């Protein structure tokens, strides 16, 4: 089966119609003969289109997507699944996955992207389409705008990684909630972070002096460390061994790419998680402490105080 998606059109409709699905209230269910799953458009004020797709296919689907030259939109394709997706962008191959340096793929006008979806693999994809003119509206100075436009026009293949903050914002946007204001705020935060990454070309910074395979391992490890509830935290020696680097090389490379040590990187995930749980009143201090694997709530409390400079008990109020 082959799909041709013009992303300057209504994306959900493009997919739904071509898959032979019935679109109902900004949603469609994958037809039984193709597999199972759902695609949903989440509506926000303004000209932003957010499509979330969770599905498993039982036959291969070849997708050709195009953002036409004269399109007034940009699109971000984020692969939140464990499985990576092989794509070619204007002929260049790229692997998209949340634990890879290329977690989000950017489609500028003129981008032609093709991919083939494997069968029997669960996918979780988010597509965010936003108008080009948003950059003019949201960037403060002409200089910032010029900088980002020149970055966009200088490269045919543009991607960035998903880091802890962007992944959190995106996940919160995707979760069902009755508070759409909150969802929208999360989405804008997410886009803001992406634009920031893009304007400093983090993806290119990362790859300087680091071999692509090492870079892949580093991102794979960082992806695991982003889970605040990870059951067992390997030692740094183990992490180095897993990434097939010497200890010194691993430490330096991790720091260069993520700006911090693996321990601090994971600590941030834990502390942010704890803060959110407390702020949302989902759990009390001792429950969180236990969940995060602290041997005693007092240890959690002091770690929290050190990180956030406020006692956890004060957050709950």
């Amino acid at each position: 089966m082959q799909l041709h998606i013009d992303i300057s059109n209504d994306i959900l409709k493009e997919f739904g119609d071509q898959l032979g699905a019935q679109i109902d209230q900004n949603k469609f269910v994958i037809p039984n003969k193709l597999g199972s799953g759902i695609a949903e458009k989440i509506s926000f004020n303004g000209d932003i289109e957010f499509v979330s797709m969770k599905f498993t296919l039982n036959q291969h689907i070849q997708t050709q997507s195009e953002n036409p030259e004269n399109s007034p939109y940009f699109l971000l394709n984020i692969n939140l699944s464990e499985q990576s997706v092989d794509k070619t962008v204007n002929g260049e191959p790229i692997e998209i996955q949340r634990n890879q340096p290329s977690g989000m793929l950017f489609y500028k006008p003129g981008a032609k992207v093709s991919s083939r979806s494997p069968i029997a693999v669960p996918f979780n994809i988010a597509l965010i389409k936003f108008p080009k003119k948003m950059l003019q509206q949201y960037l403060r100075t002409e200089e910032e705008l010029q900088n980002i436009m020149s970055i966009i026009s200088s490269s045919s293949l543009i991607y960035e990684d998903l880091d802890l903050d962007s992944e959190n914002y995106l996940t919160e946007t995707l979760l069902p909630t009755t508070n759409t204001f909150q969802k929208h705020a999360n989405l804008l935060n997410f886009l803001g972070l992406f634009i920031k990454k893009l304007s400093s070309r983090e993806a290119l910074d990362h790859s300087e002096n680091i071999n692509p395979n090492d870079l892949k391992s580093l991102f794979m490890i960082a992806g695991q460390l982003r889970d605040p509830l990870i059951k067992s935290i390997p030692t740094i020696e183990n992490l180095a061994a897993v990434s097939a680097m010497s200890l010194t090389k691993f430490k330096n490379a991790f720091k260069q790419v993520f700006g911090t040590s693996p321990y601090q990187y994971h600590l941030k995930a834990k502390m942010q998680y704890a803060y959110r749980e407390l702020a949302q009143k989902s759990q009390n201090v001792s429950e969180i402490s236990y969940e995060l694997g602290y041997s005693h709530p007092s240890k959690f409390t002091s770690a929290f105080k050190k990180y956030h400079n406020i006692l956890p008990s004060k957050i709950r109020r």
Partner: protein
Amino acid sequence: MNIFVTGGSGFVGQNIIPQLIQNGHTIYALARSQKSARKVDKLGAIPVLDDLVSLSENTEEALSYCDVVVHSAAYMGFTYDKKNFYDINVKATESLLSLSKKNKVRKFIYISAAPVIAGSPIINAKEIDASFELPKALYPKTKAIAERKVLAENSKSFTTISLRPPAIWGNNNHHYEEIFARAVEGKWKWLGKGDQILSTIHIKNLGNAIMAALTSQKGGEAYFVTDGERRPMKDFFTAVLRSQGIEPGNESISLPFASFIANTVDIVWRTFGLKSKPPVAPIMIRLMGREFSVDDSKARTELGYKNAISIKEGIAELYENTLSK
């Protein structure tokens, strides 16, 4: 297939959802809070924000996409909080059943519990041996009432199956943490000699049983599902505790004494309608103090249920999990 799962953030759900997804299914998981939604989302399921005791159009909509329901959510505990037991275990099951039928779900798999059969000791019980009497304790009683309602709804267009696991075990089972904590404090005591036989089921085996129920053509039946082999309680728990680096020791209290305490506690808690957890309840004596073993050959022949893992392999996994902590 599209499958609707309840109890997704519980021990059973957390293990079943990934297995179902790996088998190519799309999972809609009921989530009561943002936290549970995040939890099931992380497993790859589509969270459906709703409350089991007051199901809304969110659930209806998800059910309209689904072919199968796996209902594993339940209120469990040894308390005497009658309302929760009835609301969650009985009433919610009834409303989920009727919404499922209304939305043309084809199969309803109910995760029941082996103690839905009354009596004690239970020795090698088969489904057919079970008396029609309801068990006394609130948990198995409400599960039994719900199970009967589920099975009564079985029809050609809406197949219902009930799986009856005994004690469920496996890695990261938070139900066991309290037991471990007691043992660490040196408060572990065997009930009686500890030689009473206990049927168990590893979570991976329960996963297999659900897969078997999913593909089977059978309907309107209840099935015991177990690890196949069974062990004396002392052997089993000693192995489990040792895997956590805990030595349970040999202290025991006699069964008549324990039963006396449990019955006394039972009367006091019932009389005063206490909602706290009693130190020991008669159901604990029934399940752990005397033999509780069931025969799962019906599930093996009719559903084609097979073990995924042996008790020995399950224990080895517990060790590995502890070591990596």
